[in-house]
C-alpha cells in the first residue's frame, strides 16, 4: 500500500513539476524575470494546499477507484485480487433483484425528495423572519442556528426520546392527550423516513438560514421602496425583488443540500439501526465496507453513487443557470 501511495505521489509530483517547469520556461523564453519569480512564488504558495488536497482528497479517491475493481476484504489487506467489473455486476444485480441496495437507493431518493425542499423552505422562512428588524430577532437567530452546532449524535438521541414508542414518549404522550394510541414511529415503515426527514431538516436548516440571510443583506432596500411605490404587496415584493435577488444563493444552497442529503448516514444509523425501511446508500456502503469488511464492493457502490450524484448536480447547475 505504501509503495502504491508513493508511486501515485511520484506521478502527481511529476505532473506538478511539468506545469511548474512549463511556466518557468515560458517565462525565460519571454525573458521576463518578473514572470519566473511570479511563477515560482505561486507554485511555492500553492504547494501546501496541493499537498493536503493530494493526501486527503485525491489519494483516497484514487484508492477507492482502484479498490472498486478488487475483492479487497478488510481483514486480508495482503490478499487483494483484481476481479474486473464483478463488484459492479453484483451491485446492479442487487438493484435488479430488489435487494438491500435497491431499498437503500429508494430510501435515499425518498429522503432527498423530502428533505431538500423542506430544509430549504424552512431555512428561507426562518431567514425572512429573522431578517426583519424585530425585537429579539438576534435571539431567534441564535436559537435557529443552535441545532447546527450540536452534534448529530446528540440531536438523534434527543429525537429518540421525542419519538419513543412508549406511552411516556414525548410525542406519544402529547398525542395521547387527544386520545391517540401510542405509535412506534421509527419501526413503522410508513413513519420512520418522514421522522428522519423532519429531524434532518430541523437540524440543518439553521446553516442555510445564515446563507440566505447573507443573500438578503445584498438586496438593495431601494428596490423594495420602488416596489412599494408601485403598489406591490408583501407577496409581490417577495416574488419580484427578494426571490430574484436570492437566486444565486438558492442555486448554491440547493446543490449543497442535495449533495449532503445524498450522503445521509448518521441519523438512520443512530435512530433505527440497519433496517430495510431506513437504510440509505451511505449506510449500505458503511455496512458493506466496515461491518461486513468488503472494501472492494463498498468502493464500487461509492463510485456508482459519486457518478450519479455528480451527474444530477451537473444537470441541476445547468438547468438553474439557464433559468438564471
Amino acid at each position, binding site marked *: 500500500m505504501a509503495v502504491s501511495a508513493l508511486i501515485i505521489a511520484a506521478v502527481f509530483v511529476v505532473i506538478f513539476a511539468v506545469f511548474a517547469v512549463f511556466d518557468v520556461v515560458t517565462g525565460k523564453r519571454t525573458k521576463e524575470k518578473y514572470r*519566473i519569480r511570479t511563477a515560482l*512564488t505561486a507554485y*511555492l504558495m500553492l504547494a501546501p494546499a496541493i499537498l493536503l488536497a493530494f493526501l486527503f482528497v485525491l489519494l483516497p479517491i484514487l484508492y477507492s477507484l482502484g479498490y472498486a475493481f478488487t475483492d479487497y476484504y478488510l481483514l486480508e489487506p495482503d490478499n487483494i485480487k483484481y476481479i474486473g467489473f464483478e463488484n459492479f455486476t453484483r451491485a446492479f444485480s442487487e438493484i435488479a433483484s430488489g435487494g438491500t441496495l435497491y431499498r437503500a437507493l429508494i430510501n435515499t431518493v425518498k429522503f432527498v425528495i423530502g428533505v431538500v425542499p423542506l430544509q430549504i423552505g424552512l431555512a428561507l422562512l426562518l431567514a425572512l423572519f429573522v431578517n426583519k428588524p424585530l425585537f429579539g430577532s438576534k435571539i431567534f437567530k441564535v436559537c435557529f442556528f443552535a441545532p447546527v452546532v450540536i452534534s448529530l449524535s446528540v440531536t438523534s438521541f434527543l429525537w429518540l426520546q421525542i419519538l*419513543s414508542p*412508549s406511552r411516556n*414518549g414525548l410525542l406519544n404522550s402529547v398525542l395521547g392527550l387527544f386520545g391517540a394510541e401510542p405509535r412506534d414511529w421509527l419501526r413503522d415503515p410508513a413513519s420512520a423516513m418522514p421522522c428522519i426527514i423532519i429531524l434532518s431538516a430541523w437540524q440543518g436548516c439553521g446553516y442555510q438560514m445564515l446563507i440566505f440571510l447573507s443573500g438578503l443583506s445584498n438586496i438593495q432596500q431601494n428596490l423594495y421602496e420602488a416596489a412599494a411605490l408601485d403598489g406591490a404587496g408583501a407577496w409581490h415584493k417577495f416574488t419580484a425583488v427578494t426571490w430574484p435577488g436570492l437566486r444565486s444563493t438558492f442555486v448554491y444552497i440547493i446543490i449543497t443540500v442535495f449533495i449532503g442529503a445524498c450522503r445521509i448516514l448518521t441519523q438512520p444509523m443512530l435512530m433505527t*439501526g*440497519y433496517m430495510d425501511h431506513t437504510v440509505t446508500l451511505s449506510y449500505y456502503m458503511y455496512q458493506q465496507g466496515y461491518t461486513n469488511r468488503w472494501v472492494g464492493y463498498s468502493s464500487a457502490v461509492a463510485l456508482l453513487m459519486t457518478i450519479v450524484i455528480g451527474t444530477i448536480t451537473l444537470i441541476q447547475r445547468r438547468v438553474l443557470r439557464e433559468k438564471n
Partner: protein
Amino acid sequence: MKKLLSCLLMLTLSCVVAFSAVACGGGTTTDTKSGEVDQTTGNTIVKIMFHVDEKSTEGLAYKKRIEAFNAAYKDRKIKASATYTARVQGAAGYEAELLNNQVEGTLADIITFDAPNTASYAKSKLLYNISSLVSEDVQKDFYSLNTYDGSIYGLPIQESSAGFFYNKKIFREKGIDVSAYTVDNPWTFEQFNAVCKSLKDAGVTPVDMRLDATKDETATYLLYPFIYAAGGEFTSQDGYTATGYFNSDKTAAGFTFIKNLITNGYTSYAIGPTDFFSGKVGMYLSSGWTIPDLDNKYKEFFANRDDWGLLPYPSSAVAASATGSWSFGITNNHHSDKTAATELLLWLTSVESSDAITAATGMIPARKSVNKNWAEGSPEYTLLKQLETSGKERPVTVAYPTFSTCFNQVIAALGTNDVKTLLNAQADTLQSEMNRLKQK
C-alpha cells in the same frame, strides 16, 4: 530572486529538521522480532489493545493488572504498553481502530475481541494460533476457548450468562410463585407463557425481552438461545450453509415463540430502558452486568436482594442459554517471536487476573479454579450453574457480522411480519455472504 531562493532553502531545511524530529521522537526503541525494545532500559515492549475506556471500572481493572505485570516482569525485561479504545457505534470505535491497524500493519501484539469474531479473525490470520502456547491443564481450566478449525486462537477474559431478572415484590403481591424454576429444573416455554399471562392479567407488563436492542449485538446475544431451545439451528457445522438452517421449521418455531410474546401483549418494542428498574415490568432479560446495577442503583425499587431474583432461560426441545464474552488473542503481526506476548496473555488470563477483572465487572470468571464463593440460589450462582449446564455459544461462522445483522433484522420486523417470510429473506442474504467468503 535571492530572497525567494533563501526562503525556499529555509523551508526545505525546516521540513528536514521537522521530519527528523518526528522520525527520532520515539527514537529510543528498536523493533525486534519479539517486539519493540527500549534501548535505554532494554525492556521488550508488548503492546496490547483494550476495548474499553481507561477510566471505566473494567478499564481500571485491566490497568491494575498491567501495572502488576510490569512490576512482576521488571527483572525479565518485559513491559506491557496498553491502549484503550472504547467501543462506540460507528467508525470511530474499537473494531474500526483494530481493522485500521490491521490494514496499516500496526497491530498490537495482543488484542481483545468479541468471541463471535473468532472464526473470521482466525481464518484471515489476524489471530495467531496459540494451541501450542497454552498447556493442557490451563486449557481444561477454562469454561470455553476461542477455537476455529480445531485450533485455539484466544482465551476468554471472562464468561457470561443471561437470564430473567424478576421483581420479587410484584410476584409476591400478585401471588405468582416461580421458586420451582431452577437451572436443574428449568421452566418450559408453556410455563413461561403462563407466568406472563398471570402478570398481564394482574395489570403488569410481563417481560422486557430487549426487542429494542437491535442496533448492536445485545438482542442477538440475549435472544439466540430461544432458537436453540426450540431445536433450531442457524448454520451448518462448518459455518458455510445458512439455507435450510436459518429458515428451518424448528428455527421458525423459536422465533414464533418470541413473536407470540409480542402478539399476546406479554412484551413489546415500546418498553422503556428503565421500566423494569422503576417497577413497571415484571421480568427483564439481561446478563450478569445487571447485577451490580440492581445491587447499587435503583435503591428506591430494589432495596436489597429480597426484592429481586434471577430465573434461568425457559427450555423447550432442549435447554440453552447465552454464553460468550470478550477474549484476549495474540495477533499475527510482524513480531514473529511470541514469547513476550505469551507471557502477558497468560498473565492476563491467570486465575488471579480472572478473579480481579470479574470482581470489577460482575461477570463469571473464565477460569473454573477461581474461587467463586457464591451462595447456592444467588443470582451469580444461577448464572454460573446455567453456563455449566446449558450454555451454548453463538454460531461459529466467518460470516458472523452478517449473521448478527440478519438476526437483528428478523427481531426488529417480527412484530408485524410473517416469521417464515422474514427467515427466508435473511437466509438468502446470509447464504450469499457465506458463499462470497468461501470463495475468498
